[in-house]
């Protein structure tokens, strides 16, 4: 997807469940579904996943699929090595506000810098890595 001619080095997925149980998120990536943590008592999503609900302070939490539709809230393009995007510069990075009322940090791997603007509608795509996939977004 990168517009760079040089092939990016194979990026690998991080280990799962090191912080909290995130296995539903990772199973979702294998099923091509974006699953985020959901507080059933409050009816709201939260991301990244937490050990408790931000809305109730309780551990009643589940995982639900989101639509994958949202809008760009903020967007930048990384242009230098050493920021974690070596080999895939320029790397477009955005904060996406999903329809479900939760914000997610994601790359826009098909977009050139300046192409995606704040307020633009975006939808879920998948960034294919060496050993799996990671959620990303593209302009709708």
């Amino acid at each position, binding site marked *: 997807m990168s517009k760079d001619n040089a092939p990016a080095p194979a*990026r690998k*997925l*991080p*280990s*799962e469940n*090191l*912080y909290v149980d*995130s296995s539903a*998120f990772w199973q979702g990536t294998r099923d091509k579904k974006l699953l985020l943590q959901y507080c059933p008592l409050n009816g*709201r*999503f*939260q*991301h*990244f*996943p937490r050990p408790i609900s*931000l*809305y109730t302070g309780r551990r009643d939490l589940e995982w639900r699929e989101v639509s994958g539709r949202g809008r760009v*809230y*903020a*967007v*930048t*393009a*990384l*242009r*230098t090595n*050493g*920021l*974690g*995007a070596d080999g895939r510069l320029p*790397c477009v*990075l*955005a*904060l996406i*506000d999903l329809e479900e*009322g*939760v*914000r*997610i*940090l*994601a*790359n826009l791997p098909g977009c050139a*810098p*300046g192409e995606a603007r*704040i*307020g633009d509608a975006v939808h879920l795509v998948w*960034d294919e*890595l060496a050993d799996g996939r*990671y959620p*990303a977004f593209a302009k709708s």
Partner: protein
Amino acid sequence: MTTDPIGIVGYAEIPNRFRTGRSAYDLAGEAFAALLERTGVALDEVDGLSVTAALSEGTNPFFAAYMCEALGVTPTWLNLSATGGCSGLSAVMRAISAVREGHCRVAVVLSADAPSTIYRADFGAQRTEFQEPQAAARPPAAFGLLMSRYAHQHGLKEDALAKIAMVQRGHAVMNENALPKLRTPLTLEEYKASRVVADPLRLLDSVMFCDGANALLVMSRDEARRRQLDKMLLPTAYAEVTNHNGRDPLADITESGFTALGPRLFKQAGMAPKDVRMFQPYDDFTIAVQLQLEQLGFCPRGQGADFVLDTDLRHSGDLPLNTGGGQISAGQPGLAGGPLNLVEGVRQLFGEGGERQVSDARNALVTGIGVIPYGRNWSTSAAMILEAA
């Protein structure tokens, strides 16, 4: 419990240098020895110590205790301060509390770091799974996003950001502890020609890592008088907040904790922003300075650029800004960089600013910013107003 005023009575700072090859312990030792020499305090009299958590020693949970061993200090009050760029400010307040409670009498707030020599911080937590795959975990990414949103809401004025960088560079020229390579004046053309790191953030909006250390001495006025330490500063106001808006998944990322703590701070001090004689704000990026001017109430929200362009920010001006050059121009010695601007505030209020001395140095507003969170501005905001006792 003493009712005697307790404050800062001494300071020491070693020069910022790039890739010294030295450890945080060694750099800390140099700053600590300089503090003892400058204040006449004997090694065995130091009974309180706060150590700032360092990027270069990031994996060691015993850093503070090891520092005691390294320096031969036997404290009855020991603190590891770990709010990133707020660590120095918050440690001074906690040291004052410890002295007031009688846990110690002679407290040192010690910050040293050597991230340009070795970087051993491993942040773990949510970053590994939810920020690093997208390359979203490092400060330039976070501030590129923040600036893009600010530009959308209010518009960015490149000349204002350039002015912050140029004024501070002018101050670094006069600061012999600043990184040598940054001690040349900066022109608008050079600023505008500097490369973009994370749109629209430029290299010259940013700090440069280096190695360095500083130390502050905290005690009561009686204790200071007994030692003929006649200069003393009191934090007449202090406020901090961590994880501002932390339960709102759609919070405005251009709004930081300073919005919440600004009114509280000025009420405590019994003053208004117009009464601030000098501003020594935490400066990891130029936009952070502009945002703090707005959020602390120097000007309305969204008008920070105009305020910067309309105000003389030089050491000789109306609102002197980071008179030592700040981290952007003196260098950022890792997490010892937070107290860099605090030490400069103390130096100025002691009247020891040399050729960059601010006239009528009656107070200073010093701030801290700490820790890059997930998809927000920053984690901890802290602000202190210092005045002579």
